[in-house]
């Protein structure tokens, strides 16, 4: 089994810097042949909605939309916290490609097998 790497992201437009850096690091992990997961929770779940990330572009980095697309194209996984998703009234029909709604047990399963995790 490939080595795993997890990036936990709790921010979106409330902290676009963290949101961007999270996907930069995740992309680096994916490019390093790690089975990489970005777990979106709290405000981070908003990034799971099509179009939401379109106007996030931090100086010195690629636009977040491109970072996210590049990450999933490289095989990266995006999971979205179910209670956080529901709390914010988000739309399952507007999920970005590759995003899957999960709960805590799924995250525990991923991390429980042995995985470093960085949080933003």
């Amino acid at each position: 089994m490939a080595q795993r790497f997890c990036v936990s992201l709790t921010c979106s437009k409330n902290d676009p810097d963290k949101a961007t850096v999270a996907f930069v690091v995740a992309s680096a992990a994916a490019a390093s042949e790690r089975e990489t997961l970005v777990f979106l929770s709290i405000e981070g779940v908003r990034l799971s909605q099509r179009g939401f990330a379109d106007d996030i572009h931090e100086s010195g980095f690629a636009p977040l939309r491109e970072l996210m697309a590049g990450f999933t194209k490289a095989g990266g996984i995006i999971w979205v916290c179910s209670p956080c998703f529901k709390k914010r009234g988000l739309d399952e029909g507007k999920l970005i490609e590759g995003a899957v709604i999960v709960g805590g047990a799924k995250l525990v399963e991923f991390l429980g097998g042995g995985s470093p995790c960085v949080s933003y």
Partner: protein
Amino acid sequence: MTKDPLPLPDLKAEQVIAEVERLRKAACRLCGSLLCPHDAVVLVAMGFKNAPTCTPCLAGHLGKETGVFRAHVQAFIRRHDCLMQGWSHATDIELPAVACPWKDSKVADPGPVTAATTSGAEVPCEAQWDAGEMSCGDLVLELRMRLRALGPRGILRLTALDLGAPEDIPAWCNLTGNTLIKKDPPTYLIMKG
């Protein structure tokens, strides 16, 4: 369509029955079909008693697939005594001439505690639990407690409407050594141990 403001916690069975009586000859505002009395209970439960709509049209209006919407509504109604009494009244006054889309529903009777596995074989379920919209840690914490209460190799039939459940339940079973016999969201058959 706008939702009426009657908060469910304050709703009494008499009010539900009164609404069922009021709507018993109403027609769906969208397709014109005559409402079944059970449709009236659904409208009260979902907050649309002032916008008579049959269940399939209401599901479409809410952007839900009819089967999933029905399962959600059934679980919701079963958790509220006032709605269950309204449902019982609706069954009593149901007219044979009006096609009832709820005829085979499991609101009043969840059915025998058996379930079909993926291969179609019927297995006896020691228990069943409707978790409704519970999710994440809350869901698996109570699931753990309910499974622990079963005998060896006991089977629990779980109904879970949470969007994350299709991923979480298999993961949790894998982590805890319980066996997921069948996964057919929102229904799961889980064997203890």
